[in-house]
């Protein structure tokens, strides 16, 4: 059975939907994400729909379900990259996708999730696992960045 890949990045799960979604595939994605959130302890789910040229009520329901389910599992979901024509159509279709947060771009989506997780973490007394935050997975700078380069035998 064909499945949509779910990638782990820091404490986030990333999904980019690149195929015209058959209903079964959408349902599999829901199940896969639930499992992966629990297995990885992910705090955020980012779903890129920029390749989707339509979102109908089935896919809309899938996105709402993923958002609701991830919330129960203590993770936030952000949907990024919705095309303008899709947004216009969804409004007329009457679909409001309660609980689904959206961002225009991947960068904004990551920022939104980073901010979200940070706010939640700052409530915690133990902040030892801050290295997991999406905001801190950028460039490896400093001495550890150069340590790898040293040993080419010439």
């Amino acid at each position, binding site marked *: 059975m064909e499945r949509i890949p779910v990638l782990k990045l820091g404490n986030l799960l990333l999904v980019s939907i690149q195929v*015209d*979604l*058959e*209903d*079964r595939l959408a349902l599999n994605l829901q199940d896969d994400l639930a499992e992966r959130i629990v297995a990885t302890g992910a705090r955020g789910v980012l779903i890129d729909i920029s390749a989707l*040229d*339509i*979102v*109908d*009520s*089935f896919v*809309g*329901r899938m996105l709402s379900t993923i958002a609701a389910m991830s919330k129960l599992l203590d993770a936030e979901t952000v949907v990024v990259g919705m*095309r*303008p*024509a*899709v947004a*216009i*159509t969804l409004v*007329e*279709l*009457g*679909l409001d996708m309660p609980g689904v947060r959206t961002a225009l771009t991947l960068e904004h989506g990551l920022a939104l999730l980073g901010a979200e997780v940070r706010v939640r973490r700052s409530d915690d007394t133990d902040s030892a696992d801050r290295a997991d935050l999406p905001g801190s997975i950028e460039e490896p700078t400093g001495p550890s960045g150069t340590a790898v380069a040293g040993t080419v035998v010439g």
Partner: protein
Amino acid sequence: MTIGGLGPQGGGAASSSAGSPQRHAIVVESDVVRVRQVVRSAAVAARLSLVDQTKMVTAASELARNTLVYGGGGAVTIDIVDNGRRRGVRAVFTDSGPGIADLDLALTDGWTSGSGLGLGLSGSRRLVDEFELESSPETGTTVRVVKWSR
């Protein structure tokens, strides 16, 4: 029972076919995907705007899924129509399933007899320019939609 502004004759003046109609069976889930692709091509050929293409393809996706899930499978006929002034895309979905007992109810936002969102019929009616629904237990269900270029 019928709902829609066109009447059983299909609106006569509305349209003559401008090209050969394409008929596609809707019996498995992948047929719904195929229907979306065929409607998209027809909408591009009829020079619908991107937003109107998207609306028509979305409506077709909803109606094809209904044909499959509630109608127990059926078919769609897709063609490009011309009313002398504008071109458009027409899609006629047919099944010989159980029919819809109460059309007004079925066309109510949020009403579903299954586990859907109840937006397929009501929503696709808003997304297209012409919408006609006929249903009975004897003949099954036919939904005919047209989207015109602007």
